[in-house]
């Protein structure tokens, strides 16, 4: 049995629930329609004027739209944003990846494919001779970055314009991962590209892209 509400409280509750009844004139909705049309029309005419003015070079400093004109304009992205992956390099150009397979294991989409190999230096247990990532499967969860014990994979390329005309086109091989942007859209997709340590050293990128 609910407790008795005081009449005062009931009154207040009722008032809170009741909307102000519409007047007859308001009920025709004509004033609201007119007001809405007025607001949209002011935007329309203002922007129409500004667009035409921009065409002839006037009022360039007043924008006629609030949208960002992608891809000519790009939005400033947060450095925390998870974007396309890259592999980090050591100073000699070899990948930092030690082929521990933790990212391959943790990946919920199972989109990482690593082939390990022995490293000639016995103090380095192993090295990834191929490292492939299928962006068509990737869910951008960032677990691979979290789990990596070597800071070898990052998702900070700020590349998010990922598109391809085939499934294979979404495939990133180790070269593309080490040097984002080196693959052109016209390049035929390659899977499981295997590289030796000498290949890595030869392909070493310029100092400003490594860190």
């Amino acid at each position, binding site marked *: 049995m609910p407790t008795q509400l005081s009449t005062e409280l009931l009154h207040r509750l009722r008032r809170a629930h009741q909307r102000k009844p519409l007047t007859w004139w308001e009920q025709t909705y004509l004033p609201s329609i007119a007001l809405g049309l007025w607001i949209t029309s002011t935007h329309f005419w203002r922007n129409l004027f500004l667009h035409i003015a921009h065409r002839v070079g006037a009022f360039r400093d007043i924008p006629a739209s609030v949208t960002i004109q992608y891809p000519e304009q790009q939005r400033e992205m947060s450095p925390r944003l998870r974007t396309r992956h890259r592999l980090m390099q050591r100073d000699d150009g070899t990948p930092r990846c*030690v*082929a*521990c*397979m*933790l990212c*391959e*294991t943790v990946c919920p989409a*199972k989109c990482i*494919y*690593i*082939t*390990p*190999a*022995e490293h000639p230096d*016995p*103090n380095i*247990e*192993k090295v990834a001779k*191929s490292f*492939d990532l299928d962006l068509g499967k990737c869910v951008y969860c960032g677990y691979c970055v979290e789990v990596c*014990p*070597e800071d070898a994979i990052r998702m900070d390329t700020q590349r998010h314009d990922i598109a391809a005309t085939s499934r294979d086109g979404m495939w990133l091989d180790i070269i593309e991962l080490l040097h984002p942007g080196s693959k052109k859209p016209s390049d035929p997709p390659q899977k*499981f590209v295997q590289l030796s340590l000498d290949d890595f050293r030869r392909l070493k990128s310029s100092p400003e892209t490594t860190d």
Partner: protein
Amino acid sequence: MPTLTIDGKTVTVPEGATVLQACEQAGSPVPFYCYHPGLSIAGNCRICLVEVEQSPKLPIACYTPAAEGMVVHTTSDKVLKARQDVLEFLLINHPLDCPVCDQAGECWLQDYYMNYGLYNPKFDEEKVKKPKAVPIGPTVMLDAERCILCSRCVRFCDEITKTGELGIFNRGDHSEIGVAPGKELTNDYSGCTVDICPVGALTDRDFRFKCRVWYLGSTKSVCPGCSMGCNIEIHDNRERKERPHVAQGARVMRLKPRYNADVNQWWMCDAGRYGYKAIDEQRLTTVQHRNGHGHQTSTWSDALDLLASTLRRLQEARQMDRAGVILSTQLTNEDLYVAKRVAQALGIRNVAVQGPARPGRQDDFLMKADTSPNTRGAQALGLSLDAAGLFARAARGELTTLYVCGPDVIEAYGQAAADQVKNCVELFVYQGSNAGGSVQAAHLVLPAAVYAEKDGTFTNDQGRVQRIRPAFAPLGEAKPDWQIWTELAARLEVPVSFTDAAAVFADLAAREPAFKGLTYEIIGDAGALLKA
């Protein structure tokens, strides 16, 4: 028969048992590294410390004999603290390279650290550096830094193989495992040192980096390498659909011995351990039919129709003695039995089982000269082992149809004899799992499943019937031999039809006296002996 109390539970253990065994029996297992039931007791890892009432110190469970009236605590605060401290000592110089260590996932250090460790490390000094990734033999890689000096591998080489290649060198925290100067770990059982190494110090060079252990699936099976019939586990790439790149798509990653007190105990030889390549390499995956110059891909129904019509013609001409069947001791009891039944029903009397082409190396431990797993089974089924005689008759032109299931006849009898047979017989059918010499000679090639792909039993030289189980489906169009025979039987209206290997074995046990009373349940994981 001393009776003792362990964690409040009273157990009676056999005379001479240790406290560790008593604890295991009482259901309060104690951690250990250096103890191995198959080796002598070293007592040097110290992690099996337990509290025994009225004992001034914590004794090690592995070396303390169980005595009448002992009261043992395995989970008291004192024990837990001691274990933690021992673990911390063991890990002082252990490198933190679990992510790249091949043992990760099946490492006892990881397991015990999670169960008994979880301490804040107090070690602040430099770790001692030791050699890493040293190949100490053709099969084993040593990482001395990871070693906790339990000496299991040293004792194995001293006591089991008695070759003594390994030893502990230097003193104090510079102690390390190594091979004696000028020696290599080349004994026939070297792979077992990797099995018994509780940490990542010894890793298998064949398996190294091939596949992370947590991707592995495991199937209980029997090694087909020789008539010893060592119990094994087939470790396959369980996630090969999602990870087809692992080991270039191979299915079997490694074989591991499986404990069977009556057969191989904990061990297996290297020949068996690394003999799994044939499961994935050079397999026959399609039915092939030779016409004119080369082989063309055909279908099961066409091939079996051809074989059936040939046999039917012989049957109608009452010339069944011109047909011959050569089976193999590599086949399971089920395969041999179905083949025998169908051949009998058709009236083919020329049935023989081909043994291994040449004897293998034999020792007084696990390796047998007979390199096929089921010679005893073929004998128990009453099949003739005189395949050579049958082949010679074929070479003389006495046979018009030869159906070879399994053995590579060219390897056994040479190219010349095979060519002669090929010219003499009208239809030479080769049914096998791997590409080999016989394929070139055959008119019809039927792909068969290998042992890792089928259900069945092998009978080892003790007469022990042991189960093999399918780790994965047959590759390509391959089928188990018994199934191919039943499909042939259906075409010839022979009333031999089975749905699975268990049904075959049930029929076999009912009709063959040697197998009387056996079922898959009785055979279980440990196997069961034949009656005779």
